[in-house]
């Protein structure tokens, strides 16, 4: 995993998109992993009775997708400080593929810390299904890593 420095971050820079195909298997593994056992996320009949078209991805899975994309961008010394605007506009159902994308909006310094704000969103079938939100991260400063 490449370490990105705050000095390298630029507004308009895009994150590498990540795709997450949603099978029943993946949603069942997810329920066991993040402990959200609400049946709407792993039981088609139950989900349909609740008004959804199918079982659908839970919140922590969708948030984890953003975190993975952000970690890929910021490297091991980056820190995730905040996620805002994480709005789930529509269901991300089994049989669909969620694609996470991001774009650097701005960066600033507060003392010895270098902050970067990144617009994040998830797409599904060409529609934005989560976001757009804003993630705030910190990255190491070049001056702090110089020998």
């Amino acid at each position, binding site marked *: 995993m490449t370490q990105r420095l705050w000095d390298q971050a630029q507004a308009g820079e895009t994150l590498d998109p990540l795709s997450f195909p949603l099978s029943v298997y993946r949603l069942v593994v997810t329920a066991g*992993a*993040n402990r959200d056992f609400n049946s709407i996320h792993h039981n088609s009949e139950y989900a349909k009775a609740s008004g959804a078209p199918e079982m659908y991805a839970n919140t922590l899975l969708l948030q984890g997708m953003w*975190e993975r994309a952000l970690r890929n961008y910021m490297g091991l010394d980056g820190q995730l400080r905040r996620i805002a605007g994480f709005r789930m506009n529509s269901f991300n159902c089994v049989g669909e593929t969620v694609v996470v994308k991001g774009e650097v909006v701005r960066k600033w310094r507060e003392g010895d810390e270098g902050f970067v704000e990144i617009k994040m969103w998830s797409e599904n079938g060409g529609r934005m299904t989560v976001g757009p939100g804003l993630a705030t991260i910190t990255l190491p400063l070049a001056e702090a890593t110089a020998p």
Partner: protein
Amino acid sequence: MAGDDAWKADWAAVVAQIGEDFSDGAVHYGVDRVERGAIRRYLEPLEFDCPLHYDPEVAAAHGHAGVTAPYTATVTFAMGPVWAPGESVFTSAERDAQPARVSVKPRMPRGAPPTTGYFATDMEVEFVRPVLEGERVGRRGNRLIACQPKETRVGRGAFLTFEGEMVDERGEVVVRSRHTLFVYNPHQA
């Protein structure tokens, strides 16, 4: 309020409680400490290959006292058990039967109309620090911030926004969050 919107009056008691904290003030800790195996399982459905979360040497080299959980996993480690000794929760063989006690469900304000469905719609989370293997985290506070009755394509209910925090064993905040749920009764098929 008249006509088709009359049902919104059923939520007036909840609207009147905006600003109240519906928790008991105590910290409710997750059933287990943050375990490396549980962190590993959190990574699996995400295919999240970050050694901070599974390699203690890498975590130490990057300034952490141990393997860290992903930031977004903190809430998982603050959850209660599905079953506890002495309980019987799986009491029905009906296909879609729910356990007698559900481990994850909204804590509703007093006087809320009965609803059968819910899902999260919005999250805003501030991560103060990642939690480490071996730590214990719990939930504290559950303040109602907003209540907006609404009919959507899935049913009739209300958007409820709560805020709370997650703390470590010293009571220090590791996560602050606001989340919005849509609690509702589905439209009849």
